[in-house]
C-alpha cells in the first residue's frame, strides 16, 4: 500500500489522483444534498445509499436488492435519476444529490407527485415508494409520457412494487404529469 493513510476522519483530504486509498482510509467529499452543502469523510467502499442513510440520517432512501434491480434506492445525481446502491459515496464528490426528503417544500407541502401517489393509492406498504417518487418526478418533469398504459408501464419498469399491481402508480403518474403540465 502506498500513499496517505489518513485515519483521522476530521482531517481527511479531498481525493488525490496519485494516492491509493485503503478501506480504512477516509476521503473528504463535498456535495449538495437537497440544497444543503455537505462535507464528509468517507471510506472508498461506502455505497451512496448507506452514506445517505447511515451518515446523513436520510432514511427515506430505501435499500431493497442492492444490485440495481428494484429501484427503491433511486435518487437524483445532478438532476438525473440513478441507483444509490450502485454508486459509491466517493463518486458523488462535487455533485448535487436529491433524495425523497428533498421533494416536499420546507413547510411540508407535498410535491405534486407525492400528492398524486397519495390521492391515487399509488402505494400500500410504502417500501418502494421513495424510489418510485424520484423516478416518476424526473419522468413527469423531463420526459414525454407514453400515451398507452403499456408504454407508461415500460417507462416505469425500472422500479418494482410488490403491493399495488401498478394501477395506482400509473394513475398517479398521469395525474402528476397533468398537474405539472397545466402549471406550464
Amino acid at each position, binding site marked *: 500500500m502506498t500513499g496517505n493513510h489518513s485515519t483521522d476522519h476530521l482531517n481527511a483530504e479531498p*481525493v488525490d*489522483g496519485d494516492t*491509493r486509498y485503503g*478501506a480504512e482510509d477516509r476521503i473528504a467529499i463535498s456535495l449538495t444534498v437537497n440544497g444543503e452543502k455537505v462535507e464528509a469523510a468517507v471510506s472508498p467502499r461506502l*455505497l451512496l445509499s448507506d452514506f445517505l442513510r447511515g451518515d446523513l440520517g436520510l432514511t427515506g432512501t430505501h435499500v431493497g436488492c442492492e*444490485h440495481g434491480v428494484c429501484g427503491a434506492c433511486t435518487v437524483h445525481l445532478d438532476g438525473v435519476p*440513478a*441507483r444509490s446502491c450502485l454508486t459509491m459515496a466517493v*463518486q458523488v464528490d462535487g455533485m448535487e444529490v436529491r433524495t425523497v426528503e428533498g421533494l416536499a417544500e420546507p413547510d411540508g407541502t407535498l410535491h405534486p407527485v407525492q400528492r398524486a401517489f397519495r390521492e391515487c393509492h399509488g402505494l400500500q406498504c410504502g417500501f418502494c415508494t421513495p424510489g418510485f417518487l424520484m423516478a416518476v418526478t424526473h419522468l413527469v418533469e423531463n420526459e414525454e409520457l407514453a400515451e398507452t398504459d403499456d408504454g407508461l408501464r*415500460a417507462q416505469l419498469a425500472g422500479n418494482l412494487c410488490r403491493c399495488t399491481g401498478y394501477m395506482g402508480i400509473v394513475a398517479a403518474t398521469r395525474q402528476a404529469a397533468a398537474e405539472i403540465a397545466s402549471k406550464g
Partner: protein
Amino acid sequence: MKPPCYEYVAPDTLAGALRVRAECEDSVVLAGGQSLVPTLNFRLANPDTVIDLRRVAELATIDTRDGMIRVGAMTRQRTLERNEAAFARNPLIRETMEYIAHPVIRNRGTVGGSVAHADPASELPCLLTLLDGELTARSSAGERTISAAEFFEFVFTTALEPEELLVEVAFPVLEPGEGWAFREFARRHGDFAVAGAGATLLLDDAGRIARARLAACGVATTPVRLRAAEDALRGAEPGPEAFRAAGELARDAVTTVDDTAASADYRRHLLGGLVNDVLTRAAARAGGPR
C-alpha cells in the same frame, strides 16, 4: 451485502490510470459501476485495486466523422443513445440501446464499461459483433485496435490485457438505404435477454439481398455472428420465405445449455423467431430497388 475491502485510486488523467493499471496485477475499472458494483456488493468480485475513471474527462467523447462513430469509453449509455449525430448515421445504435436494462441504469452505465464487462447476453457487444465494430485498447506501452470478432473471447472475458484499458468503442455507420433492426426477448422488461438478435439488410438494384448481417446475444459464451443464415440470404429475394429459412439456419448458433431462464431448445426456437422478425423489420426499412 456490502463491497469488499479494496485499494481505491481515482486518477486525474488517462496516463495516470494507465500507470496504475500497469502497476497492479489485479485491478478492476470503475466506469459507471452498473455491472461492477453489483458484483462487488455480492462479493462475486474481490479485486485488489479499483481504478475509478470518473475524473478522466478525456474519455467522455463522441466523434461521428469518417464513417465511424467513435465513442470514448466513459461516455454514458444514455448520452450515446440520445446523440442525434450518431442516430442519423446509425439508427440501430439507439434501437439496440433501448434494451439495455432501464433508463436509470443507462444514465450511469458507460459504453466502455458494458463492452469491457462482456456479458454474453448484453446488447452493445452484440451490436459491435453485428457491425464489425472496433475496440481501442491502450496501455503505458501504446495503443492497439481490436476487431469485435477478436475482442469477445468468453463469458465476461475479453482480449484486454491486465495492463490495458478500453479507451474507445467504434461503431461503423450504416450504408445509405441499409435496413436495420434489433429485438430481444426477456421475461420482464429490462431483464437480461434470454436471447436477442440484430440485423442489417442491404438490397441491390434488382431488389435482391446484397448483404445481410445477423448477430445474436444470450445464446452462447460470446455474442455470435449468424454466418450460415447470412450466406443463405445473399442474392435471395427478401421476404417471408427467405427470412423464415434464415431463422431456421440461425438456430444452430445456440450453444448454451439449459439454464434457469430457458432450455436450449426454447432458445433455439426463440432465436429462429427473432431472426425472422429482425429481418422482416430491417427489410421494411431498407431502401427499395434504386
